[in-house]
């Protein structure tokens, strides 16, 4: 058996392949549901209902989608340059810490500036913190050829330990009754609600705007062209005069910055402070989302809503029927691999 490149991927295959992949994923996960002793149809119905079945469900899903859009964009822009940033989780926490460092109450000693000044400053600090956390691996790759996958991954563990140390010490909230949680954000820096009485905040608009901005950057600017050129073939790009190192640094700043913003927007929109468990792996889910979206920034929004729906729906399904919530992680992981395979078969066909 061997694979042969199709001369022209057909439109029907391109649209049908992801759908087939999702169907395959649901069938395979269905076997696991049966193993847990639950009826498959009802489990999926409850999952869907928990994700999109009511105003409350939809707002919860969209709230969850906000950080996922941003980490998904972070992964998408990096992967486009074949720069495998697996460290969005750490960069998210770097951004969250920077956000409370700038905009925190600090026991009443926080900055007493107008929120119109302080809020942008806080977001810039968060983006910078995330970007700086990724700059080291980017330079190590560009200058020394150190594989970025391992360095960015290991830095996630370092960052989580740093957060833990800071929440035990310098950034601990004295009012938190001993809970390891950071000082609180100044109330006037918190994001407004998009839908009253729900948790959905205006961060969603920011995330979608950033997705459009990233799409424009990638598709319509020289910087975007360079990023794609480095990803397609770094050596050829260098030969054609693309500054590869500078492009990689730019990618690191963009990718780390987006992940840092994810942390700041979570703090400003949802939590109000930093905790060790504020991200249940948003950084890692971002990788899946970017791949599901085919690295297209606009596709990232759709993929993030899908993954957020699976996660939120699984929570409420689990409460109702007792199938473990880890089913969501299985669905997401199988979907990733299935979409990859499906994507391949739209490009290639099997020849015997």
């Amino acid at each position: 058996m061997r694979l042969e490149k199709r001369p022209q991927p057909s439109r029907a295959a391109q649209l049908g392949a992801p759908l087939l992949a999702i169907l395959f994923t649901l069938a395979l996960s269905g076997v696991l549901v049966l193993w847990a002793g639950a009826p498959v149809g009802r489990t999926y119905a409850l999952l869907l209902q928990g994700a999109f079945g009511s105003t409350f469900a939809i707002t919860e899903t969209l709230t969850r989608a906000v950080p996922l859009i941003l980490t998904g964009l972070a992964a998408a822009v990096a992967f486009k340059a074949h720069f495998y940033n697996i460290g969005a989780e750490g960069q998210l926490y770097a951004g969250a810490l920077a956000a409370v460092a700038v905009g925190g109450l600090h026991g009443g000693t926080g900055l007493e500036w107008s929120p119109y000044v302080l809020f942008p400053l806080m977001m810039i600090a968060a983006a910078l913190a995330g970007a700086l956390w990724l700059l080291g691996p980017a330079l190590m790759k560009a200058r020394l050829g150190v594989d970025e996958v391992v360095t960015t991954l290991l830095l996630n563990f370092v960052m989580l330990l740093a957060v833990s140390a800071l929440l035990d010490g310098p950034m601990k909230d004295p009012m938190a009754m001993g809970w390891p949680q950071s000082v609180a954000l100044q109330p006037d820096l918190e994001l407004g609600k998009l839908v009253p009485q729900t948790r959905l905040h205006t961060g969603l608009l920011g995330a979608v705007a950033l997705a459009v901005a990233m799409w424009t950057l990638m598709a319509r600017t020289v910087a975007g062209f360079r990023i794609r050129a480095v990803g397609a073939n770094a050596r050829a790009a260098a030969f054609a005069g693309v500054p590869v190192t500078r492009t990689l640094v730019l990618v690191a700043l963009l990718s780390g910055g987006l992940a840092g913003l994810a942390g700041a927007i979570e703090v400003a929109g949802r939590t109000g402070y930093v905790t060790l468990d504020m991200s249940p792996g948003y950084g890692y889910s971002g990788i899946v989302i970017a791949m599901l979206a085919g690295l297209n920034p606009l596709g990232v929004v759709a993929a993030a809503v899908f993954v957020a729906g699976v996660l939120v729906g699984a929570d409420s399904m689990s409460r109702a029927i007792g199938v473990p919530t880890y089913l969501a992680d299985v669905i997401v992981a199988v979907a990733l691999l299935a979409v990859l395979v499906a994507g391949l078969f739209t490009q290639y066909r099997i020849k015997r």
Partner: protein
Amino acid sequence: MTELLDILASVPFWVAVLRVATPLILGTLGVLLCERAGVLNLGIEGIMVAGAFGGWLTVYAGHGLWTGVLAAAAIGALLGLLHAWLTVGLALSQHVSGLGLTMLATALSYYGYRVAFPKVETPPTITPFAPMQGLGLPVLDAQTPLTLLALLLVPLIAWVLYRTPLGLAVRMVGENPRAAEGQGIRVLAVRTGAIVAGSALMGVAGAFLTLSAFNAFYFNMVNGRGWICVALVVFASWRPGKALLGALLFAFFDALQLRLQQSGSAVLPYQLYLMLPYLLSILALVVVARKATYPQALMKPYRKGER
């Protein structure tokens, strides 16, 4: 200073070093086999979780400890086969396939654990491997048979890689698959075999955690050990002997930080000591990167007749 000397002179310290090193030795050998054949396997973190869970569940279900080890190896091999199909058969991105595999294996293990034990708060335990004793060697006596297995696998794998036709084939498909094919070597088959064997080792590396080091399965118990193995292979320049050395060196610092912490002489927050293993891995990568000689075909998919 005297305290440091006290630690270094104590037998229990070196026992701990070897114990911490064991999963790293097994995992690093596994990654080494895959990469020597030209395939990155970032599935290791998840394969270790699955091996830890599968091995433990087998023993918990009433089978012997060695059956548990075999089960972990089989689970690893099976997941390796999936990785081989995706990366060797379909030539998909090795990075992405490996990460996907880690997510899948981890999610499946956690899901399986929750289905099997829906309500338990404290993880159920098994009777793990006992220390070997009777060898008459002070540090090795306190280890379990899996540590001995890991130590014996180092020369065995070195011998296979450098002294047998099979090893030559593995190294050739990792360096120059086209030339290997010219010599009549079935590139895809050799790569698949190396991934399956390497992944089986990763499964056993995970099983060491539940069947030897601890006696139960915990969430997050692998905790980045797999990624450290990936870093250690670079440190070892893809050589089994150096992989052993790297794993021991690494375990030495890990055990040392733990002792310093316990002795109360730690002046810094404990988290800084816990960071050391990860920072050391990154440092090792940077130091070695300049002269690292990667297998030339690493991460390059091979398609017959396509250039």
